[in-house]
């Protein structure tokens, strides 16, 4: 089973990468003349776009670390981090005090702590994979970020996505590469050569295999809906456009949205499905043997995964960059509408991140067998039923 999924992922992955190379999937304006000068500009634009995408994802990941601590504290009746301060920032009249109270400078302290700690390499680990694992858990997050359409702009009357690469198999690409993140987890677990990480890795593996199916089944009806009046229904931008000035897919397919959301919690290893690193029984699961900056990478990777996962969920079910169901930013506003669409998307990501955190500090963790039962006995049949229902509905 594991090999199968692995092969499928590799296949999808190479497919998507091949598609990414196909011209026409550019962020820049269509029909760009391929003179050398234009190529340079286009290349520069793409690098710029990639940088912006990485900055957005990483800063959201960082902010959600602070948000995690703050929201957790508030739910538990505490204040959370509100003392850390950089002296010269604190000296700024109102802003400094606010940043201190909001715990935003704690972020810097956390990052520096991970950076400056001793970076031990245990003697009993498989060194190559042990070092590669954190990178492999973070990299897919940043790769997936490039196909997410963060907004929309209009050029010559045609709606264009604000994304790094607007590829036709964007959805497949996102699902395939996004699922690669779990290989980092498994690699870390196996190379650590220690019992707790090993068990954690096995759990992560089993969990992802179980819920990946549900996720795919939940997405299919969306693609079917989009396929009614779009040429490339796997394109994330087309999926987003299908929801402008019409019902969002979470309203049209509430069950599918719910299934996808649950599978997303599993994919990102978040409570109530964080059995891969359940700190009460597995010390800290797959990253037990990790410390300092390597652990930091895992940490950022987890939150980055949340950001990208929420972005995907928003694009698929929560109306992408549109402000309200049956309401879209009017095209006539031009650049203003473009900016507003990006802001809408970012606000939605923030809301989703809050939801992730909120759930984490509300629910207890599922036991391993409960998670498996839920996946195979409840969610998978529901996913199939959901798919069949919409197939029939669209068929007749």
């Amino acid at each position: 089973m594991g090999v199968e999924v692995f092969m499928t992922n590799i296949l999808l992955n190479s497919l998507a990468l091949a598609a990414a190379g196909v011209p026409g999937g550019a962020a820049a304006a269509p029909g760009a003349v391929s003179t050398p000068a234009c190529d340079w500009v286009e290349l520069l634009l793409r690098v710029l776009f990639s940088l912006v995408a990485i900055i957005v994802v990483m800063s959201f990941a960082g902010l959600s670390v602070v948000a995690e601590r703050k929201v957790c504290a508030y739910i538990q009746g505490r204040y959370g981090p509100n003392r850390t301060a950089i002296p010269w920032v604190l000296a700024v009249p109102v802003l400094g005090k606010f940043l201190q109270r909001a715990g935003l400078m704690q972020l810097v302290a956390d990052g520096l702590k991970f950076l400056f700690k001793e970076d031990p390499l245990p003697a009993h680990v498989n060194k190559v994979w042990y070092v590669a694992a954190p990178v492999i858990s973070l990299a897919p997050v940043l790769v997936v970020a490039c196909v997410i359409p963060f907004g929309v702009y209009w050029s010559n009357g045609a709606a264009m996505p604000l994304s790094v690469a607007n590829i036709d198999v964007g959805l497949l690409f996102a699902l395939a590469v996004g699922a690669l993140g779990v290989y980092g987890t498994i690699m870390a677990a196996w190379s650590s050569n220690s019992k707790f990480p090993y068990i954690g890795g096995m759990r992560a593996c089993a969990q992802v295999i179980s819920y990946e199916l549900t996720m795919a089944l939940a997405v299919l009806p969306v693609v079917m809906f989009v396929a009614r009046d779009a040429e490339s229904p796997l394109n994330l931008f087309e999926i987003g456009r299908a929801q402008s000035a019409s019902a969002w897919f979470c309203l049209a397919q509430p069950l599918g949205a719910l299934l996808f959301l649950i599978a997303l919690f599993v994919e990102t290893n978040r409570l109530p499905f964080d059995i891969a690193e359940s700190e009460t029984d597995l010390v800290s699961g797959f990253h037990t043997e990790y410390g300092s900056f390597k652990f930091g990478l895992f940490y950022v990777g987890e939150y980055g995964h949340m950001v990208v996962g929420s972005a995907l969920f928003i694009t698929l079910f929560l109306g992408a960059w549109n402000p309200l169901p049956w309401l879209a930013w009017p095209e006539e506003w031009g650049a203003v509408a473009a900016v507003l669409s990006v802001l809408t998307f970012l606000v939605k990501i923030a809301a989703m991140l809050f939801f992730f955190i909120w759930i984490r500090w509300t629910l207890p963790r599922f036991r391993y067998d409960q998670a498996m039962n839920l996946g195979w006995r409840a969610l998978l049949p529901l996913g199939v039923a959901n798919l069949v229902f919409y197939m029939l509905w669209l068929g007749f």
Partner: protein
Amino acid sequence: MAIVVERKRLNFFERLYLPQIVSGLIITLKNLFRPKVTLSYPDQRPTLPDGYRGGPTLVKDSQGRQKCVSCQLCEFVCPSKAIRVTPGSIDPDGEYFYIEKAPKEFQINMLRCIFCGMCEEVCPEKAIVLQDEFTFAAQSREEMIFDKQRLYEAGGTLPDKIMKWKRVKDNADLERDSH
């Protein structure tokens, strides 16, 4: 006798699990807006209850007299051997010359002290009192051994109405009255 607890069968909505999640989310959301229970410690100080046992101090009476008579009971009773009293004589020309003894040096090692309050309990003069101060910090071990002057500074005055050693008139007068 075994008590059989009857388990109610869950109804459909309870088995669905989602309504329970929603109600849980509502509870945590309410908590989000509740006032915080944290005491921002160095800014806000806790209100200490009566009879709180903080650091031991030496006190003066309302006349400004140093109450300790250097009987060394506290030194004897101290379970952690934190107190060291060096007895000395009192100024023979002073007002209270008849008390005869006062500590020449009085040391409490705050690193050894366990704040049990036995010294306070045993003191016949109410001269040693455990007060509110609970934060002790220093750069070295020597600084944590509090001497007599420091203990009196920390202690202040105990507004005690009973003047045990105060002579109302002359002792001779008292003796004459009693006969």
